[in-house]
């Protein structure tokens, strides 16, 4: 935004810009992984009421060599007032989005109902678009700043989707590698077992015909 000299109004416009830019803050954390043994909670501060809180999380299984896929974990979002804003049960990864009913510290909790530890990769983003309410009485909302904020939000949503895809791809890769390991291990084990069983068969038949057991019976 250019500020031209000589115009007494330009000082006010600059202050408006200052005010608006203070408001077009975007808060987010990058995708982080936390190991969940029982309950893990993350706190995130929401500045304004009505902000859109969006995010996603993916459960990346720990070594699942023997058992089948993990049944999933529970996800709860608690508002600063104490009531539950959003909840998801028994899922292995999902996206979420909600409008914050009030500002304050929100609690995002992952609960693992089973004993196997899980790694959760999550991304939480709090987005704010400046509106008329944010400004003081004598300031005007510049539509360009609103558009810039919307553009930023759109880019953030693309980034969030990418992080989700990356986490899901990593989980998929994990499953595939585990499948490969299992296939090789089980097949080689099967061969060895077959050889062992047939060896035992031969030994047993030899014993049946040996002198000490029952020579004349056969």
């Amino acid at each position, binding site marked *: 935004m250019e500020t031209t000299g000589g115009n007494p109004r330009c000082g006010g416009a600059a202050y408006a810009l200052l005010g608006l830019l203070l408001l077009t803050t975007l808060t987010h954390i990058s995708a982080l992984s936390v190991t969940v043994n029982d309950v893990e909670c993350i706190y995130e501060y929401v500045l304004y009421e009505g902000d859109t809180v969006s995010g996603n999380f993916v459960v990346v299984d720990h070594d699942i060599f023997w058992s089948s896929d993990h049944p999933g974990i529970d996800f709860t979002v608690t508002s600063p007032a104490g009531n539950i804003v959003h909840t998801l049960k028994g899922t292995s990864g999902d996206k979420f989005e909600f409008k914050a009913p009030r500002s304050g510290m929100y609690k995002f909790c992952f609960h693992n109902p089973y004993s196997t530890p899980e790694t959760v990769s999550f991304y939480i983003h709090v987005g704010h678009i400046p509106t008329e309410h944010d400004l003081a009485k004598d300031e005007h909302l510049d539509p360009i700043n609103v558009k810039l904020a919307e553009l930023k939000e759109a880019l953030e949503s693309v980034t969030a989707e990418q992080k989700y895809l*990356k986490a899901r791809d990593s989980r998929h*890769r994990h499953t595939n590698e585990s499948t490969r390991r299992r296939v090789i291990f089980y097949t080689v084990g099967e061969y060895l077992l077959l050889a062992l069983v047939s060896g035992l068969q031969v030994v047993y038949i030899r014993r049946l*015909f040996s002198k000490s057991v029952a020579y004349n019976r*056969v």
Partner: protein
Amino acid sequence: MNFKERGDIIVVLSAILLILRSVESIRFDLETGHTKCIAEDIKLNSMTVGKYQVVNYNEGLPLPDSHKITIRVTSSYGNNYHYAENVAWGHFAFQAADAGDYMACFFAADTKPSSFMTVDFEWKSGVAAKDWSNIAKKGSVTAMELELQRMYDTVQAIHDEIYYLREREKEMQQLNISTNSKMAWLSFLSLLVSLSVTGLQLRHLKSFFQKKKLI
């Protein structure tokens, strides 16, 4: 000072404030005697910045001595990038020399009785870690230019990430194809193994019975 200069200064100041404010952090509870680890996937050779502090709920009063944490930042290859013992706050910055997951582990020394402390942690890497305030101070860029430059960098990062995802998908496809062919070979081999084992059995038993003069 005429209006133009004042306007410019205000614009630059607002840009700086914007940058300072566009930083938020996560909080988590740490129980004494326990370790909590947070991992983040950092691209090779990208800058990463982290800041941690134990939250003091009593403003004005100093933190109790027991509220100290030990932090260690390691890469997936095991290289240590940052280590601080028994501190209440700190920060780290490094350039990622290894690709992959970096883990920041927080440990609180055991106390009897065990207590909880809240740790405020902020970890930025890549585009978000770039020091925009310096860039704002250096030239007389307007705030809007700065924002647009940031968005451009974000778009570049998105583009690079898509390439990375594409490569990963290609690798996974290779892995699946190889698993598929390996499974086919192993099934065929299992047939061979069972037939050969049967053949060996029959041969051995025949020679055994011939020796025993039963056949």
